[in-house]
């Protein structure tokens, strides 16, 4: 397998570092310009995680923390493909996910929302994309939750995604939202993304064709990582 440097990231498509509507970004956003760095091997390579990294229930948040029963909530399957910007599948991509339970409560020491913990729900899972870039996991639909930003800000229901591609330059963390959730368009974190078309790329549609009758509804969420140049015309050593 070989590949060249990655296509330049479209920084106007991503959220800017500074967005006063999302208050925490105000003191955590670099103010100086990023310095352009032509990809070297340090950016073009990245860690590889084999399927032996995974346990049998890693992709099943309904069962991977279950103690004395299954978690409360709407059973769902999330599936899709990891592609690059040239629509080529990205196989072997490690996808880590985390989320609140059905009531909107996270299992975390610093979480203070009054909704109860679910003793059978941990809220973390992971999987690796197959040869065609496809992935899937099973979970409970997370609930929306309030958060301290404005006096009455609520996060839409969402699942956090962390994705490793083939090069460290492709490293990405994002969030998946659910079709039809009115809170999406009220959320200051969603609104850090300037372009409506970009936001829509994070909204997973209900997928009845992959819904398991009498068991779990499906949502389809494709992920696009940066594409890369062919090595044909670059990486020539000096003197070549």
């Amino acid at each position, binding site marked *: 397998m*070989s*590949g060249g440097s990655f296509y330049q990231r*479209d*920084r106007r*498509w*991503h*959220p800017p*570092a500074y967005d006063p509507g*999302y208050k*925490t*970004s*105000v*003191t*955590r*956003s670099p*103010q*100086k310009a*990023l*310095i352009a*760095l032509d990809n*070297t*091997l*340090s*950016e*073009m*390579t*990245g*860690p*590889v995680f084999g399927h032996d990294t995974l346990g049998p*229930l*890693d992709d099943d948040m309904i069962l*991977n*923390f279950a103690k004395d029963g299954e978690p409360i909530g709407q059973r769902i399957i999330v599936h899709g493909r990891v592609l690059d*910007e*040239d*629509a080529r599948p990205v196989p072997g991509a490690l996808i*880590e996910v*985390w989320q609140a339970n059905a009531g909107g409560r*996270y*299992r*975390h*020491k610093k979480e203070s929302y009054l909704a109860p913990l679910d003793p059978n729900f941990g*809220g*973390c*899972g992971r999987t690796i994309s197959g040869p065609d870039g496809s992935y899937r996991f099973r979970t409970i639909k997370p609930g929306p939750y309030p958060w301290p930003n404005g006096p009455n800000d609520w996060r839409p229901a969402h699942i956090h995604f*962390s994705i490793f591609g*083939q*090069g460290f*330059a492709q490293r*990405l*963390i*994002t*969030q998946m939202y659910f079709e039809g959730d009115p809170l999406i368009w009220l959320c200051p*974190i969603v609104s850090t*993304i300037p372009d409506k078309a*970009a936001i829509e*790329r994070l909204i997973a549609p209900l997928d009845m064709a992959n819904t398991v009758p009498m068991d779990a509804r499906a949502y389809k969420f494709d992920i*696009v*990582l940066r594409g890369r140049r062919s090595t044909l015309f670059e990486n020539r050593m*000096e003197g070549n």
Partner: protein
Amino acid sequence: MVQSLDRLKESPSQTAGPYVHIGCTPNYCGIEQVFPEDLGSRMLKEETRGERIRIVGRVFDGVGTPLKDALVEVWQADAAGLYPSPQETRGKADPAFTGFGRSAGDMATGEFVFETIKPGSVPFKDGRPQAPHVTLWIVARGINIGLHTRLYFGDEGAANEADPILARIEHRSRVATLIAPKTVEGGIATYRHDIFLQGEKETIFFDI
């Protein structure tokens, strides 16, 4: 009209949020029954080749407060300068070295720690050597898109002087934000590397 490039747009980034540890270091935040260990928590084995070092630091916001909810990842070459990656075509990297580390800042102090080895030199695109370095990636609540930076080693003065990336940085006073001074703590070479998100000491972040 012209033909279409038929290119997709990258999925836009969103902040990792305050609960990134649930997904990325669940054992560290008390969810211990799901994964046997946290990804990237052990970079070394006994047989890993190279000089043992420790990288420590904190991430500071614009008012000088250390972040206690950041997640820092590192990616680096082995002691011979080879990456443990299928994209590495120059040779085979040390199989006892992962090259990847991940550290949640300490919940009380915000300090991140990596027990690793000092990397060898990796070539620049034109074949010139780069000074030994480690790539860092930082995410946290309030960071809308992960920040890429590098750590260079304070005891590699000559190599740092000749490094093609450091040489291109226009504001020379900022180069020091990428260089970690060496101390010896508990008998082990320790590179202390604080990262400043904003302000006079703002760390150089790269658009890679």
